[in-house]
């Protein structure tokens, strides 16, 4: 199945690197986000409505992260928030005629899922050290090690496929409906696209957060238990 948008067909070759339309779309989104961030530098103590919305969004993200991971919220905040922002904008970009959502490409969703996979281990090792982190894979018994590994791989795979499948199918359905029913009929479907984009971004970010929290808090719970036994 090929991408349905115009940019999706584009393939540029720069040496051994292939620059697909998805990468170009991603760069455009990144550029847009950076420009937006650049133009919101002049923040004031008593800001306008735009600043209030931005601050509210940031505070909401921070509160959500703190609710799951109170001690390491500051550590994971940039990663999780960027996931939400990037996936949301990427999902919504599919609404623009001629543009495919980058998240409807398996390479993109897989890249993000692999990043989540790596970040789980990165934050886990960073918080407690490599040895202690790896120790939990053989707990409660070393027999559990293969299951832990399968679990890690399967949930990463599930993350990648879930996002790709939802967004790709949504775009495909919208494309087919547009082809069959005409101009105005896909409007409710586009509304559904917005809702789905928000939900999928939230789910991907929350799952990433929960996975990271699981890696960090397992170690913390263990330490707290050991300290409790000592006392």
């Amino acid at each position, binding site marked *: *199945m090929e991408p349905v948008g115009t940019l999706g067909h584009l393939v540029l070759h720069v040496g*051994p*690197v*292939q*620059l*697909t339309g*998805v*990468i170009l779309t*991603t*760069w455009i989104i*990144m550029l847009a*986000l*950076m420009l937006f*961030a*650049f133009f*919101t*530098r002049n*923040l*004031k*103590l008593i*800001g306008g409505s735009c*600043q209030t919305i*931005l*601050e509210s969004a*940031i*505070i909401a993200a*921070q509160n959500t992260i703190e609710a799951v991971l109170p001690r390491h919220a500051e550590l994971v*905040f*940039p*990663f999780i*928030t*960027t996931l939400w*922002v*990037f996936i949301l904008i990427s999902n919504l970009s599919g609404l623009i005629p001629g543009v495919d959502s*980058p998240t409807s*490409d*398996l*390479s*993109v969703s*897989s*890249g*993000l899922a*692999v*990043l989540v996979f790596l970040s789980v281990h990165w934050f886990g090792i960073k918080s407690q050290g490599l040895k202690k982190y790896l120790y939990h894979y053989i707990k409660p018994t070393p027999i559990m090690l293969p299951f832990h590994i399968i679990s890690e791989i399967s949930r990463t795979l599930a993350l990648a496929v879930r996002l*790709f499948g939802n967004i*790709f199918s949504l775009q495909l359905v919208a494309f087919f409906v547009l082809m069959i029913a005409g101009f105005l009929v896909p409007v409710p479907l586009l509304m559904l696209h917005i809702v789905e984009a928000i939900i999928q971004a939230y789910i991907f970010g929350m799952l990433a957060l929960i996975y990271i929290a699981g890696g960090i808090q397992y170690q913390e719970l263990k330490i707290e238990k050991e300290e409790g036994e000592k006392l």
Partner: protein
Amino acid sequence: MQLNLSTFILEIINFLVLIWVLQRIFYKPIKAVIEKRKGIIQHSLDETNKLHEEAVALKSQYENRLSDWQKEKNEKCAKLRQEMVEERAKSLENLQSVIFKEKEKNKAQEARKLQSLIQKAEKQAEIKAAKFASKLLEQFATSDIEAEIVQLFLDQFAVSHDDKIALIKAELSEDKQNSVNITSAFALDNSQQEAVSSLFMRIFGDKITFNFSQDVNLLAGLYVTIGSVIIRANLRDELRFFSEMPFHD
């Protein structure tokens, strides 16, 4: 649904770059502003709490002070009331004393005034009585009464008027002729004139000349002047004497 390795790797790199950029130019400034605002709000809250605590402390202090003031006020009011009662009693006592003295004074004044009025009335009564007696005696003032008075004068003058006799003697001059003025209410007859003349000449010597005259105002009796000495032996002077005499109970 193909997995493009270049896209996969580039996407990972893109995302990591995006995290780095957004962290620096987006999240940090917004968080800084939020933290700064939180700090200001917290500072304001701290100030407000501090002010509130100060206000509560001041309120408590003022309430205590008010309570003290109220207590002090009640004590002073009670003391003032006591002083007022004492002062009123004292003033009342003084006033009663003054009123009593004033009453006594008024009573004395009234008594004096009454005494004066009584005396005045008595005086008037005496005068009226004298006038009445005078009027009454005028009816009885006859030549016979005068003869009786002259006879009484002749009988008693030499016996009971030594002081006057001494005065007259001192008044009379031995070298020259002295005159004696004798006034009577009715004209004296010759025997009476001679009896009177011989009486005076017997007492004071013979260098005396006698001038007899008549004055009906004397009612009855004689009025004799020898130098500066006057001898009153008539009803008019006797009545005047009685009327001017002080009244005694």
